[in-house]
Structure formats: C-alpha cells, structure tokens
C-alpha cells in the first residue's frame, strides 16, 4: 500500500469507511449464500446514570460454533457496540467502527458526537445488508459527553437508525428478552436494578431460544455485562456476572422452572 494521497476534489475526508472503500480494503459483496455462524442476543437498558448492556457468548451455525464470543466491544472510551447476525461480518463491522471513530479523531483533532457515530454506521449497515445475505445488525450505546446522558441507538435491516429511550434488543432471542424488559423497565432504574433486569432478560432469552447461550455453569462461562456511563466503558468481572446468574438460576430451580407471574 503506497501513500494514500488525494487531491481536494476526491478526498474521502475523515471517514475511514469511505477511504477503505476507495482503497479496496473492505470485503467485496458476493450474493452467494454461505453458511456462517450467527451471533445471538444482546440487550441494552438505560438507567439513570447511563446504559447497561448484556450479551450472550454463543455463536451458532447448524451446531454451536463457539461458546465464548465477545459480542459487545468498546468502540471507544464512551461508546459500546454490539452485534447480531453473521459473526464474520459483525466482527469486521466492529473493527470498522472502532477504527473509524479513532480515525475521525486523528484526522480532525475533534471527537465525533455520539449522534454522529450512530449516523455514521447507517450507510455501512445499509450497504452490507442490501447487497449481501450475510446480514449484520448492530446496537450502539454510549455516554453522550455533550449532553451528559446515556443513549441507545438501534438499526433496522436497511440501515435505519433509531434512538431508543428505554431499552433495545437484537438477535434471535430478542422477543423473549424484549418481553422481560417490557414488564420490568421503569424510567428510574438505578444501576443495580438495570443490571438485574438485563441479566434476567438474557436468562429468559437463553431459556427459550436455542441459539442464545445462557449461563454455562459447567464451563464457568457467563454472558458479558458492561456499563457505559460518565466513567466510560466498563466490563463486569466474570465472578460478579456469575453470582448474578447464580441467584436467578437458584430461584428458578426452586420454583421448578416457573417464573411465577413476577419478574424473578
């Protein structure tokens, strides 16, 4: 790769995606159907001081391809990005997003706003999903430094970007997670409540959806839980996550697998 110099009229600007596209660094889009593992359930819940995200760790093709996939990553210090859909495209997408935000910052000496980041991803999703069967659907959550508030953005298959003021879910287990969140969400959730609700919603998804990996007590592998707030992106320690899922599992064992009409 030589020195990528452009004249003023065809300069791709601070967008890494436009540059990568012009330089042929992105994958070409082949309409042939390929079987590739899918990544599954991720949840984002707003609470008073930011956003909580929970994601399962399983990648599923016609069998379980991996049990310890990371579907939530820090895109930068105050932004988290999560993926569902084709794992291969999702991982490429996360790399593209991470690099793009940093690229913009270096090129312009200014940090992209959270809304700017959310909108930037739209055409990338649109192009991938409308030209390839290897669909990927991300979820973006972050701490908005300009407004000092946690925000969640979800996308539809065509790349449409929508801000959610309560919670959002992606992946095949999302109907089950969504229902749990709908019953349990309040506008005044504190961090602990949001973590417990998020864990429960993921537990339900893992319980009902064959492609969502719930807590794996045998291998000591648990869903990823992260918080994004004024302190930035932080991942909960495995032990902390394990104890939360153990509590849910214990309750559920005692009730013989029945939720019992309350959020437990």
């Amino acid at each position, binding site marked *: *790769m*030589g*020195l990528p*110099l452009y004249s003023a009229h065809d300069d791709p600007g601070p967008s890494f995606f436009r540059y990568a596209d012009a330089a042929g660094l992105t994958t070409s889009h082949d309409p042939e159907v390929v079987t590739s593992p899918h990544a599954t359930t991720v949840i984002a819940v707003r609470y008073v001081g930011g956003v909580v995200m929970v994601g399962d760790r399983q990648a599923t093709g016609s069998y379980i391809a991996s049990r310890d996939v990371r579907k939530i990553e820090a895109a930068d210090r105050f932004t988290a990005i999560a993926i569902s859909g084709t794992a291969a495209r999702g991982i490429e997408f996360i790399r593209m997003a991470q690099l793009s935000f940093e690229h913009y910052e*270096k090129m312009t000496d200014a940090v992209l706003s959270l809304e700017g980041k959310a909108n930037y991803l739209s055409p990338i999703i649109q192009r991938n999903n409308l030209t390839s069967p290897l669909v990927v659907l991300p979820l973006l959550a972050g701490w908005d430094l300009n407004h000092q508030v946690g925000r969640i953005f979800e996308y539809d298959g065509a790349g449409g970007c929508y801000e959610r003021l309560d919670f959002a879910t992606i992946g095949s287990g999302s109907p089950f997670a969504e229902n749990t969140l709908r019953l349990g969400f309040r506008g005044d959730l504190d961090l602990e409540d949001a973590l417990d609700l998020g864990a429960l919603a993921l537990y339900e998804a893992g319980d009902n959806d064959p492609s969502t990996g719930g807590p794996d007590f045998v291998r000591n592998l648990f869903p990823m839980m992260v918080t994004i707030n004024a302190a930035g992106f932080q991942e909960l320690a495995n032990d902390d996550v394990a104890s939360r899922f153990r509590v849910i599992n214990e309750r559920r064992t005692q009730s013989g697998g029945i939720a019992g009409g309350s959020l437990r």
Partner: protein
Amino acid sequence: MSNYFYVAPEQLIKDRAEFAQKGIARGRSIVAAIYDVGVVMVAENPSASLNKISEIYDRIAFAGVGKYNEFDRLREAGIRWADGTGFTYSRGDVDARALANYYAQHVGDMFTEGPKPLEIEILVAQLGNKIRPTKLYRIAYEGTISDEPRFAVLGGDAETIKGRFAASEDELEPLATTLKNAVAALAGPDRVIPPSELEVGLLEDRGSRRTFTRLSDEEVSELLR
C-alpha cells in the same frame, strides 16, 4: 521547434532547493527529542488550532514545518496509511520506517518532477517497544531521509538550534529537563517564548494503547517552571 533554453541539471536542482529553503525559512522551527521514557516534540506555533504536531498511530507521531496545506495533506495521508495498514494486517505491523520511506519517496518525487518542490520538512517519530526501537526520522524538502539518533530539528534555523540543543544535553534526561532545553534552543539567548505560543506533543506509555498526548498551556508552564 521548442523554445526552451537548456538548463543544466545542477542549476535546476540548485534553483529548486533555494526555492524550497526560502519557503521553509519563513516559518518557525520544531525540536523533537527523545527523553528517558518517551519522545517530546516542541513547535513554536502562535495558532492554537492549526497544529504542526499530530498523532498518526498508537506509537507514531508526525511533525511538519513550512507550508501548512502541504504538510497537512501528508499528515492525513499518513493517518490513512497507518489505519489502513493496521486494518489489513494488524496494529503491530504499522511501522514508522515504512511510513517515513513513503514520505521520502513522495517528497523526493515532488522535488524532481513536481510543478514545484514542497516547501516543507517533516518528522516521523516512533516510540519503541519490545519489537521496535524509538526512532526519529527527518525527511527534508528534497526527499532526503535521515535517522536522527537522539534529537531532530526542523525548519529554517535548524543548524543554530541544533547546536544550542546539542550543547545543553548529552544524555537522556527526564521530560521537564528535555522540554526546557528544547524551548531554550528554539528561543535562543535573547528571547523567551510564552507557553501559549508553544505546541507540545508527547509519545509516552501511560498504560493505554494510544501513546500520543498534547500538553495544555498549563501543563507546559508547569513543566517549564
């Protein structure tokens, strides 16, 4: 029949070199120096927003003197090159020497073949780690690349500043000392440069992947005290 007069290549190169030198001499200089745990770059720059020193990659920084639009385009190309290389291979494969060579080739091409030579001098600095050394590569207007062992000076008054800085330091010092020496070398004996007219960038390991930081005016005055 063409009407061009014959110009000896020696004359052509001399004219072009004079042209570039004149352009570079109009601007202020930059001192870049290795200190005990990092690299510091100091520019005399009255503008707080038109930067001469920038981040290229995790452990690579850029500094440029001369015509702003010319070196800024090279800065942008460097960021694209580094991010593109890291995206294609891995972050660890992005090497300052490769980038410095590309810069040298481009600047050299512009000197001999371009409509006019670039009126710039640039520096690519790399903070070392287990697999790569700490390096300062200086690229002059005609494409000469030099690997400076401990410090580099860019700009019109380079020789004088170089002499002053070399006299003040003969081994690696802490940041505050090296910064003081660099500022003194830039200013000369009869002048004091206020912190607001200094642009200072560092490459130093502070526990995160990215090692570049800009120092604020307050931080600079604190260190110069």
